[in-house]
């Protein structure tokens, strides 16, 4: 979970694309399907979250920035 925090949206999307290809093209056995599917679900949740959930880190950064911004 820790390293998921560091994952960028672009990386998550790239991983999803890779998983699709792996499931589609190779002779993935049923056992690894389950773990691929679980990972895909995680990534989808992460990506959706990036679109609609407020990221407190970004907010904090911007608030701090606004505070320092010179007034015109």
């Amino acid at each position, binding site marked *: 979970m820790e390293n998921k925090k560091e994952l960028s949206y672009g990386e998550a999307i790239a991983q999803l694309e890779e998983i*699709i290809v792996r499931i589609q093209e190779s002779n993935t*056995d049923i056992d690894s399907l389950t773990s691929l599917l679980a990972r895909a679900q995680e990534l989808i949740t992460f*990506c959706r979250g990036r*679109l*609609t959930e407020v990221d407190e880190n970004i907010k904090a950064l911007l608030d701090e920035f*606004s505070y320092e*911004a010179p007034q015109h």
Partner: protein
Amino acid sequence: MNSNEPLTLYALNNMVRCTLNDAMPSRYWVTGELSEVRETTAGHCYIELVQRNEATGELVAKARGTIWARTYALLRPYFVEETGQNFVAGLKILVQVSVDFHELYGFALDVCDIEPAFTVGDMERRRRQIIKRLEDEGVIGLNKELPFPMLPQRVAVISSPTAAGYDDFCDQLAANAYGFVFYTHLFPSPMQGAKVEEGIIAALGSIARNLDLWDVVVIIRGGGATSDLSCFDTYDLANNCAQFPLPIITGIGHHRDDTLLDIVAHTRVKTPTAAAELLVHAMAAQAAYIETMRRDIADAVRNAIAASGRHLHTLMQRLPVATALLMQRHSHRLDLWKQQVEAASPKRILAMGYSITTCNGKVVRSVKEIRQDATIVTHLADGEFTSRVYDE
């Protein structure tokens, strides 16, 4: 008149006035650069017209001019409408004038008409020069070449805080139907008049100091009708925007041809609202892509499971065939063994006329094993008989 008698200044000036009126009775079309424009509360407009040496820029001619209120009330809106440009210093103009000399106020041009097309042409020529220069310097397309961010969520807005357009933009983003999150921050700059260039460049500078905080820059201005767009047509502004390392979206609310700022920007839309819609659409495209991938994954998994099922089915079909084959192979081997066993069987030897003799159930291999009066059994191919030994 006695020529030795000195003239009064008024008389002299009056002579100049009359001479001028007689010598230049017509109206003349004249070109020049506006070096000064001053509007009075009474509605008159005082201008200063100059001509420069094209090579050196030094002044070679200068004249004051007046546009009386009644004329100015007609000419100004006409000029603004036609040129998309306020009547301000720095413009090249073509005006129809009559030459005036007043005993007290001196020489002045009385402006009675203006040809905006001349100014438009001159502005266009200057614009083209700037575009050419940006092209020659290889910067004109730089901003457009930047990849548009997958998620344009962190938006640095350059606008005038008082402009209606800024609120429209923020409202539109905040109220997006998908519930997407955006982070906006205003970098204030004047959005009309002479301070635009300086203001936007300074705002870009502030954004550049924390480049990592932003995905995209939006330059917006509300209220479509405002006319003075020449402030967005300067070299320094275009050059700064073209080379800015984040994609710039413009929505400066106008309907005529693109300003230079629009030309160098990554993406140009008409209004602040349209700029907000653009960002929302980019996010919606990502949401749709995620949904597509979710479906693709589900399909792929279903296909993979189905493929495994088919594989299993094939195996099950092959099983009886394989079993039968195996049985057949074993059966053949048994037959072979049977033949070999049969070939080695004593029956075959007996059939050739040999016999086997047993005594007390044991095969007799030597005459020494036989005692007198022993009972022996002789085995032949088709049966056996019992005998008694009477002589050893």
